[in-house]
C-alpha cells in the first residue's frame, strides 16, 4: 500500500496541470464538450462502441480517451455495455458482412433519439478495406450516420472533437425512428 501511495504521490495528477503543449487546447475542447453535453444530455453522454470490422487500431485510440491525459469521463462521457443505456453508437471499421446483422441489432436495441458516429477512415468511407465480398464498406451503407470522425485511426483529440460535433448536430436530423428501417 505504501508503495502505491508513494507512486501516486510521486506521479501526481497527469491531467492537471496539463502535461503537453497542446493541453490547453485539449482542455478547452473538453470544456466545450462538457457544456454541450450539459445542454443536450443533462450532464452525461452514454456511448456504446461497436467494432464492426476494424483492424483494432481505432479501438486503441478510443481506449486512450480513458487515460489520465484525456480522462474523457470528467466531461460527462461514459462508455456503456448495453445499447439500451446508450445515447450514441460509435462504430469503427468498415462494416464486415459478418457483423452487419449484429450492428443493426445493436442499433435497434437503442432507444431514440440516437446518434450514430462513424469513427475512423474505414467507418467513414470504407477506408483501406472498402466494399468487397466480405465487407459492406462505410457504416452509412448499413445505418444512418450523423457524424463522421476521419483519421486512420483518429487521434484521441480527433475523437473528442468529433463527439463535440455530434452534440451540435441539429436535433431534427438525429434519427428518431425506432429502428424498423434498419
Amino acid at each position: 500500500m505504501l508503495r502505491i501511495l508513494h507512486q501516486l504521490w510521486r506521479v501526481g495528477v497527469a491531467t492537471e496541470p496539463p502535461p503537453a503543449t497542446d493541453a490547453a487546447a485539449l482542455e478547452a475542447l473538453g470544456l466545450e464538450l462538457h457544456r454541450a453535453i450539459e445542454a443536450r444530455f443533462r450532464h452525461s453522454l452514454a456511448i456504446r462502441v461497436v467494432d464492426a470490422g476494424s483492424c483494432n487500431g481505432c479501438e486503441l485510440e478510443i481506449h486512450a480517451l480513458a487515460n489520465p491525459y484525456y480522462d474523457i469521463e470528467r466531461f460527462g462521457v461514459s462508455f456503456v455495455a448495453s445499447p439500451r443505456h446508450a445515447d450514441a453508437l460509435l462504430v469503427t471499421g468498415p462494416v464486415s458482412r459478418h457483423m452487419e446483422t449484429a450492428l443493426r441489432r445493436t442499433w435497434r436495441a437503442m432507444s431514440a433519439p440516437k446518434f450514430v458516429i462513424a469513427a475512423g477512415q474505414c467507418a467513414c468511407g470504407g477506408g483501406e478495406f472498402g466494399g468487397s465480398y466480405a465487407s459492406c464498406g462505410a457504416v452509412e451503407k448499413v445505418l444512418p450516420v450523423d457524424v463522421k470522425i476521419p483519421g486512420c485511426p483518429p487521434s484521441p483529440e480527433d475523437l473528442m472533437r468529433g463527439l463535440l460535433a455530434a452534440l451540435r448536430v441539429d436535433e431534427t436530423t438525429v434519427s428518431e425512428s425506432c429502428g424498423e428501417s434498419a
Partner: protein
Amino acid sequence: MSAKQDLGTQLHQVGINTRSYSGVANLPALIISAADWGPAAAVAKAQDWRWAGSWADTDAGRMHLYALLAQGGEYLLLTAQAPLERPEFTSHTPHYPAADRLERHARDLFGVIYSDHPDGRRWTRHQAWPQDWHPLHPAAEVRTQGRTAADSSYPFITLRGDGVFEIPVGPVHAGIIEPGHFRFHAAGETVLRLEERLGYTHKGIEALAVGRNPAGLLHLAARVSGDSAVTHAWAASQAMERAVGATVPPRALALRGLLAERERVANHIGDIGAICNDVGFAFAQVQTSRLRERWQRRNREIFGHRLLMDSVVPGGVAHDLNTTQITTLRADHATLRQAVEPLFDIFDDHPSLEDRLVTTGHLSAEDAGALGCTGYVGKASGQALDLRHDAPYAPYHELLINVPVQSEGDVAARVRVRMAEVHMSLDLMDHLLRTLPVGDIHAPLPNPPAAACGLGLIEGWRGETLAFVRFDASGCIARYFPRDASWFIWPALERLIHGNIVADFPVCNKSVNGSYAGVDL
C-alpha cells in the same frame, strides 16, 4: 545433416517421396504428393517439429498448399499440389491440433478439400457467401448480395450433464474490444469448456492484397492488426525483399528494429495495466496508460503516427532520425526505465494481485508446445523460442537477446515475461541508437522476377509472425498471406480457461490478448 535432409530421410523410410523445392527464396523446402500431406505431418510430429502455419495458393492452374515446420530456429517448408478442379489433400489437423482453423480457413476461402479433416464445420465463412463459393478460388465469380444474416445456426459442440449450462457471449462484447463469439459451458462457476467462434471481422484482406504494388501491400499489412502495424508490415516487407533479393540498408534495418521494439513496449505496457485492471487493480492501468500515451505521442512526433503505421516501407523505413531525436529517444528510454521500476516492483509482489493472477489461466508446457505457442504465451509456459535469438534477422543478429522464460504458465507468469521484455526492449533500443549505422534509410526494390516468392518471419510483440508473398509477372502482388501469432493464441485460450471461474475469463483473455482482426483477415 541438415534438418531438411533429416526429415527427408525419415519421410523416405515410411515410403513418402520427396523432392527438393526452391520456389520460395532462401528457404529449404520439400515437395510431396497431396495424398502424403497428412502422413508427412505425422512423421514431422514424431520428430518433434513445431507446426508454424499453413496456407493455400493457386498458380498455373494448380492448387498449392504450404506448411511451415520449425525446429528451434530452423525452418523447413512442405508443399504439395493438386488440380484446381479437385484440390484434395490429406489433413495436418489429426497430427497438429493448431492446424485445425488454418486448414478450415483455406477450405472456406480456396475450396481446399481435406479428405480426413476431423472438423467439417466452416470457420472464416459465416453467412456472407454460400458453402460452395470460394472467394479466393480462381473460378469464383464476383458476387453482389443483399443483407447478410447472422450466423445463428453454427453447430457449437454441446456438453450435457446435471447442472451444466451454456453462456453465449458476443459477437458484440460489453467492453471496447473486437467482436467474436465465446460459447461457455459451465457448472456452477467453473468453466468446463470454451469454444470460440471468430471470423466476424473478416474483410477479405487476402483478396484485397492481390494486384497491389509493394508500397500498397505494406499499407494493407500495417492494418492486418492495428496493434501490430510494424510487425506485419516488416514481415510482408521482408518477404518481398527476400523474394526479389533486395538489400536493405543497415540503417533502415536498425530503425525497423527500433520501431518493432517501440511497438512491443507500447503493447506490453498497455496490456500489463489492463490485466491488473481486470482484477480490480485500477491503479495499474492509470499508471501504465499514462506511460503508453506519452510513448504514443512521441511516436507521432518522430515517426508520424501514434501506432507507427506506414513507418515500414519497401526496402527500408519512412523516417530517419537526426541527432536531437536520438537524444530525445534515449532520454525517453531512461525515463521509462525509471518509471516502470516502482510499478513492476508493485505488480510483482502485491498480495491482492498475486491472489488473482497466480495459478489463474494455467497453460501447461505440453499444451503450449503442442499448439506451437510463441511469444509471451509460449515463454510463460516454458517455450524458449524467440526469433530474435533463435532465427535472428538483421539487426538482431548482432544483438544480445536473453529470452525470458517462465515455467508456471499462469497469468502472473505471462505478466512477468512481458515485464522482462519491456526491460529487454529498452536495452535493445538503446543499443540500436548507440550503434546506428550511417547511410540511407531505404533502397529501391529491384524488379521482381515473375512468380518470385518470399517468406517473412518476424518476432512481433505477440510472437512469431509470418508473411508469404508471391509476385505476378508484372511485379504486383499475386498472393499475400499473413499468419499472426494469434492463430495459436486462441486455441491456447480455450485450454487455459478450463477449470477457471467464468468471472476470470476477462483477465485470462487479456493475459494472452489474441488479435481478432489478425486471424479473421
